[in-house]
């Protein structure tokens, strides 16, 4: 424990209610209900998640030490959380030594104010932005607009979402719910001076975005970014990307402002050797993403000569105060868990109502923003937006045990909402959880069966990595239903409905 600690520790606050983008308007089942009818969304998502999944399996399978890298990544993150105070102070010291300025924000509103003040001080009325989940979480764009500053998203998908006055639906491919004809129409309507003969060939659409954004890159004096990693030892920040818009934003403007969640810090520069293998392979299924930028403070004669780092709490310390839940802070935002999640594939990202969708969103959002901040808080339904199949845990490069976190959050939810029938069910679940072998077996059995069952619900053979497992263990009979059938079934609907406390059958169905 830190020597400066005095008195009784107080539970850190969640992200304040009514701010930012960590809460939807509807509970998950209702929100999902609308999205489930969206055929195009389902088709696009199905194609995207399956394609990325196959690529991910191919490139992670290439590395014989993949599991050892996951173990290292997981341990580095856990160690980071244990030592967060000293690491944040070290990061601050290093960035400051190298000519940067570090700011601290207790919540999203404070971060928004800091950024706005910094932008105004430059005299610029517009900013270019690299895709960043932290700035989306705090609603920075909306705040800037209200203050008379125009933010330009520069990631192609984020640009599409912004021009369409829409919300992102996937961490990695935020515009996956839009098809090419829609994107063409959006560009024709929203990009000033675009060639009216623009067709819907993706390369031509990308070229139109390139031409539009190039002018912004060359003339805008301020850029805003997030950060994938912040190295305490050296003060180095890093942004991982594909299109080159990140390099543009990090290189061309006079002023750079980066907003980073406090959990993104890493102890040592050498830790990048682990995360630069885990992240691209898990995220896009590439051996390496096209571009990664690293910068340390300010470099004379190269890039922005003014650099600000805003360190953001906004509920992260509340998550850290939860022994079980804190594991969600280890997330490196690769989106692998989204791509393997049968619920996400079916409902899309918007149903989660938060910047963070999918399995990670279901465990992170309630911890950052709480589940009972208001009557019928939509976030109380998120821990139930899962069949606990365990595919996310298998896919996660830092081995976050999302199913256990979901169970823990369901438990906390019932404790808080006081639904007794659910409490009983949770006790049963908890006793299963206390017997790791039995639990793992139950998980694996249902997971293997569900994952491998085709559209028709038939299980043909076990592909790697499951074949190794099935050869050495007794395979329980897999569930008779595919996830799709399960979701449509009474049982599935009941489980999702159980999320709603006003429902009288508020009991876990399994």
């Amino acid at each position, binding site marked *: 424990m830190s020597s400066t*600690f005095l008195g009784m*520790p*107080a539970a*850190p606050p969640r992200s304040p209610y009514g701010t930012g983008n960590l809460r939807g308007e509807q509970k998950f089942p209702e929100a999902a209900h609308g999205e489930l009818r969206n055929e195009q969304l389902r088709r*696009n998502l199905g*194609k995207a998640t399956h*394609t990325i999944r196959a690529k991910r399996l191919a490139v992670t399978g290439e590395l*014989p*030490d993949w599991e*050892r*890298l996951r173990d*290292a990544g997981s341990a580095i993150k*856990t160690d980071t959380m*244990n030592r967060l*105070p000293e690491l*944040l102070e070290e990061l*601050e010291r290093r960035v400051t030594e190298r000519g940067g*300025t570090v*700011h*601290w*924000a*207790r919540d999203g509103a*404070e971060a928004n104010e800091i950024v706005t003040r*910094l932008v105004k001080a430059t005299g610029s009325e517009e900013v270019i932005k690299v895709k960043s989940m932290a700035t989306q979480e705090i609603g920075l764009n909306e705040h800037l607009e209200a203050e008379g500053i125009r933010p330009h998203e*520069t*990631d*192609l*998908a984020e640009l599409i979402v912004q021009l369409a006055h829409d919300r992102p639906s996937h961490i990695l*491919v935020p515009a*996956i719910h839009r098809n090419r004809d829609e994107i063409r129409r959006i560009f024709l309507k929203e990009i000033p001076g675009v060639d009216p003969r623009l067709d819907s060939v993706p390369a031509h659409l*990308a070229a139109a*975005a390139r031409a539009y954004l190039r002018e912004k890159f*060359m*003339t805008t004096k301020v850029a805003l970014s997030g950060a994938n990693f912040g190295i305490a*030892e050296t003060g*180095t920040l890093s942004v991982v990307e*594909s*299109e*080159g*818009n990140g*390099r543009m934003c*990090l*290189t*061309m403007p006079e002023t750079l402002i980066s907003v980073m969640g406090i959990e993104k810090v890493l102890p040592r*520069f050498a830790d990048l*050797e682990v995360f630069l*293998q885990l992240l691209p392979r898990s995220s896009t299924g590439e051996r*390496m*993403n*096209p*571009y990664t930028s*690293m910068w*340390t403070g300010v470099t004379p*004669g*190269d890039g922005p000569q003014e650099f600000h780092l805003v*360190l953001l709490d906004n509920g992260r*310390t*509340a998550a*850290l105060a939860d022994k079980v839940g*804190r594991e969600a802070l280890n997330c490196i935002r690769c989106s692998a868990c989204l791509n393997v999640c049968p619920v996400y594939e079916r409902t899309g990202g918007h149903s989660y109502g938060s910047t963070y969708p999918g399995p990670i969103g279901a465990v992170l959002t309630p911890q950052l923003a709480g589940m009972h901040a208001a009557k019928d808080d939509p976030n109380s339904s998120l821990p139930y937006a899962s069949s606990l199949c365990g595919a996310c845990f298998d896919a996660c490069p830092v081995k976050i045990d999302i199913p256990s976190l979901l169970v823990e959050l369901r438990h906390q939810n019932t404790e808080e909402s006081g639904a007794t029938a659910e409490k009983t069910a949770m006790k049963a679940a908890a006793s299963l959880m206390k017997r790791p072998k039995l639990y793992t077996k139950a998980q694996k059995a249902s997971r293997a069966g569900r994952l491998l069952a085709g559209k028709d619900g038939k299980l043909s053979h076990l592909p790697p990595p499951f074949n190794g497992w099935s050869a050495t263990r007794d395979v329980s009979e897999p569930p008779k239903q595919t996830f799709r059938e399960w979701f449509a079934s009474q049982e599935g609907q009941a489980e999702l409905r159980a999320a709603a406390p006003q429902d009288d059958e508020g009991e876990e169905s399994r």
Partner: protein
Amino acid sequence: MTEHAHGAGESASARETVLGRVRDALALAEAPRVEVPRDYRTGRTLPDDDLVGLLTDRLLDYKAEVRTCTADRTAETVAEALRAHGARRVGVPPGLDPGWLADFDGEVEADSAEVPAPRLGELDGVVTASAVACAETGTLFLDGTPRQGRRALTLVPDLHVCVVDRSTVEVGVPEAVARLVPERPTTLISGPSATSDIELERVEGVHGPRTLVVLIRTDV
């Protein structure tokens, strides 16, 4: 008390509050110290031919163009690459060996911090060296030293010819990262820029150079 830089109007209290919350959180949910297992592969080496072969394979896979030559044919090969892409006006970082452009009959402009970065868009291409390369991932590392130039130079022009010396090629990511100098502005490049944002269809070349030519010098 240490000194901390804060923007005008910002008190130190946000900093103290956040750090206080972090300490409180750790006190409320104390966790055992963890040892980080680092038994993943490090310190790997490969025979020269295999190393160059692996790098070439990975670069091609990411749609870079690869040319291989010996040091004495550098100027010739650079000129060939530039000609093949129709480059007439080429930028170079201030510290690049002028001999590398000796066979090129177009215009060569040495970059400096005084040139406004948007003007780099007038160049047809740029020729630079590189700091390190990672064979397993097909990644080039640029670190802003005088043979590689400032970051804008290899970003704004549409063609990047990057010279990689055999001695700077490492097998994997850990070996390559170990050779970096953290404080230098570093860019990792794996093929030309790309997006899959529209219906997941890959489009090469969005904002960075649309063409990447890697020239591997096998005897340096």
